[in-house]
């Protein structure tokens, strides 16, 4: 599928070598490590430049000598080879000089590392939990937590729609952090190993089941920063982005207050949802959306599943069997499979509607309706 944008890119790509020589700033930015917005990220950039420069200088010397020899000592110019083949002195020199250079590199690396590993005295702690394939953020001090899912629509991924600016790097709910505070991250995982990475903070910390790892950052500038999971974690590893919205301190405090309020409103909303008796049409409507958002990556939008890895729900045993088993499967998941527990992730209404949807879509015709109150009681 060669689209217009592709052809455009093709063109740019052909001019790539021409650009390499020029000092096009925008281009240079894409080629270098990101400077980021923390003191640490900038120090790491310096270390990167410093080590790169050392490598380039050594490279120029070694390859320069080699190319000189290729030029001057080729047979047509230098028919009679010399016979020397050993020199203890030279060997000693080119063993010790590199050691000295390496010490010169190790010193700034060590001092940066000691600062990076200093996790003490945090102002704020966020527990980050990776699971296939989304992040959960828990503000430990504020008793506030939520999931963050990729927001890029399927149609863009499958090339049916033009890709947005932040293709694959956008989420439904970003992590929100304040500037100028030492934020401590604790990382862990529910299923397999993930890795939480935001290049602009130079924080990359593996999230490992059974472990709680520590990292920290102190962000200098407000803004939106993006990253991705950096450890292969299964099928949709490419689709678990990270988005961090960094606010000035007062705005951040206000945001926390707003979130607390929203939780109270939501719990009020949940009470109202439970009190109501929903019709099949209403539930199916909501349920379809929930299914597309959360279940279709594995079970497919038409419920056909993917081979034996992800079972088909169309005509499936559980969606057409006893209701209690179905509710249990969705709420609690299946142990040690990618089918996770959805009870902590979805509201009563969402769970009730997605189960109703599954029992009455894809050709399933149980005519069963699940009400939010049933879910509430099952919790």
């Amino acid at each position, binding site marked *: 599928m060669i689209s217009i944008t*592709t052809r455009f*890119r093709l063109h740019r*790509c052909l001019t790539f070598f021409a650009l390499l020589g020029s000092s096009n700033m925008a281009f240079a930015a894409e*080629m*270098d*490590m*990101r400077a980021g917005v923390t003191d640490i*990220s900038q120090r*790491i950039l310096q270390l*990167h430049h410093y080590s790169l420069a050392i490598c380039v200088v050594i*490279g120029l010397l*070694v*390859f320069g*000598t080699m190319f000189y*020899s*290729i030029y001057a*000592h*080729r047979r047509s110019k*230098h*028919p009679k*080879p010399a016979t*020397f*083949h050993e020199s203890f002195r*030279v*060997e000693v020199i080119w063993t010790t000089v*590199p050691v000295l250079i*390496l010490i010169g590199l190790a010193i700034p*690396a*060590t001092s940066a*590392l*000691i600062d*990076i*590993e200093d996790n003490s005295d945090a102002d704020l702690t966020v527990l980050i939990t990776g699971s296939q394939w989304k992040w959960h953020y828990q503000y430990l001090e504020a008793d506030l937590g939520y999931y963050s899912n990729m927001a890029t629509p399927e149609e863009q*991924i*499958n*090339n049916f729609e033009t890709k947005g*600016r932040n*293709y*694959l*790097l956008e989420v439904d709910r970003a992590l929100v952090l304040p500037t100028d505070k030492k934020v401590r991250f604790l990382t862990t995982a529910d299923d*397999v*190993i993930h890795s939480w*990475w935001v290049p602009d903070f*130079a924080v*990359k*910390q*593996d999230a*490992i*089941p*059974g472990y709680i790892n520590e990292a920290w950052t102190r962000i200098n500038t407000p803004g939106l920063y993006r990253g991705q999971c*950096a450890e*292969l974690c299964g099928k*949709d*590893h*490419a*689709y678990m982005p990270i988005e961090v919205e960094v606010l000035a301190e007062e705005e951040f405090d206000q945001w926390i207050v707003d979130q607390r309020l929203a939780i109270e409103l939501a719990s009020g909303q949940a009470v109202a949802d439970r009190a109501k008796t929903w019709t099949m049409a209403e539930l199916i409507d909501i349920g379809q959306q929930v299914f597309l958002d959360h279940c279709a990556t594995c079970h497919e939008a038409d419920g056909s599943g993917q*081979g*034996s*890895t992800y079972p088909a729900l169309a005509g499936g045993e559980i969606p057409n069997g006893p209701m209690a088993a179905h509710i249990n499967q969705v709420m609690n998941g299946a142990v040690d499979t*990618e089918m996770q527990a959805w009870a902590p992730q979805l509201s009563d209404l969402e769970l009730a509607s997605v189960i109703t949807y599954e029992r009455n879509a894809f050709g399933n015709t149980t005519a069963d309706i699940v009400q939010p109150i049933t879910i509430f009681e099952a919790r």
Partner: protein
Amino acid sequence: MAVTADHNIPNRSPLMAFLSRWLLTTNHKEIGTLYMWLSFVLFFIGGAMAMVIRMELFQPGIQFAEPLLYNQMVTLHGLIMVFGVVMPGFVGLANWQLPMMIGAPDMALPRLNNFSFWILPFAFTLLISTLFMEGGAPNFGWTFYAPLSTTYGPPSTDVFIFGVHLMGISSVLGAINIIVTIFNLRVKGMTLMKMPLFVWTWLITAFLLVMVMPVLAGAVTMVLTDRHFGTSFFAAAGGGDPLLFQHVFWFFGHPEVYILILPGFGIASQIIPTFARKKLFGYHSMVYATASIAILSFVVWGHHMFTTGMPLTAELFVMYATMLIAVPTGVKVFNWVATMWRGSITFETPMLFALGFVILFTIGGFSGLMLALVPADFQYHDTFFVVAHFHYVLYPGAIFGIMSAVYYWLPKWTGNMYDERLGKIHFWTAIIGVNMTFFPMHFLGLAGMPRRIVDYSLQFADFNMVASFGAGMLGLTQVLFLYIVIKTIRGGKKATGRVWEGAEGLEWTLASPAPLHTFETPPKFPTPEEDYPRD
């Protein structure tokens, strides 16, 4: 001698004769040929998978490889290239060359030699057949981290485990054979410190193999029992530790990367003196450098795990140890350059590949040194920067090493000279292809593109497209290589015994093609007609 059993038992159909010749052969040259062809076939299979990967990454969006298929391609590509191409390729070269270089009639354990080879076709058939199994092939990367490979692995993981066991058995037996051969069958007068460097590097590699392949076997066995027999070595929920897996794997894995490169060092050390017409500079320091690299490689596995939450002191130790490896590696590079210095150099294809090896491997070494700096590694780790690094050490490193060895010794094996003009075309297209494919990956990684992703955001589009074009070119030019090899086997200018005027070593005292059985009576060493007698 028992090893020279007659291959031509009369009254057999030609097919049977052909089969029994190749199935039952205990001749080191024939087994070497089998290894080389296996490696070549798998190079094309693994290469086809690389083409699938690069086509999928040609532009953003899903082109044709769904994520699950993509992950299978990445995994099998890695496994096949490491265990199926580079390792058998080097073993094939060892089989052909070691006995001829040390003046031995054959490998010390010829039947074992046959067995080690014939395990491999089964192992790789099993591995590749997983693609057609219910649930697909392994999809967790060649590093098969738990719990992705234990609790969450597809059913074919068990087949993969069996395959790895087979490869491990093959490698360990092959390595034992090499060690025994080198220690026992050297011609009189060839002391250890007079062995050619290819022999030295293989001896050290063989020790690495014997020491670490059992560790890999242990790792896959623990994965197996975690999957089926209720153990919890790597399952946090059962009191196990997912990080234990990584420690065990990389204790194998880092020496393994040196298994993949040390014989290449040996090859460069044979070829550069030949075409510079000058003795290898610093023979002794080359040997000591190789040995120190091998020893250090046992204490640096942690550099693959900097982001797993290692304590500061461990990070510092591993960083310093890893940086230290750059010293002996540098010594080797300096020695090669000094060998060329004031030589009388010509640039036949083997020399071109050897020079490509030295330059591009050194670039891979530079990025390795940068990766060793823990703070910087927090940014580089698990990005395309790492992919660029290990492809620079593996493609122009290990693979170019094998290719230059093939061009160098092919006239000895076949009796015919390869087509020099085609060889040069192959070299130049390969070197442009390698750099066009892998150099932009440094930029991708620095700009923040994680590795092992099926789809990427828009800012990475340009360099990915460049890399995909380069990969296409690099893939195509290997078809040319195949053509050159077949053409040489079938005919061409007759090669002399010495083949290269500057070549030194016992193998060149033999006729070309080398007869099936050589050195049945031990040769004289050092050879009287040696241009540059050894000290």
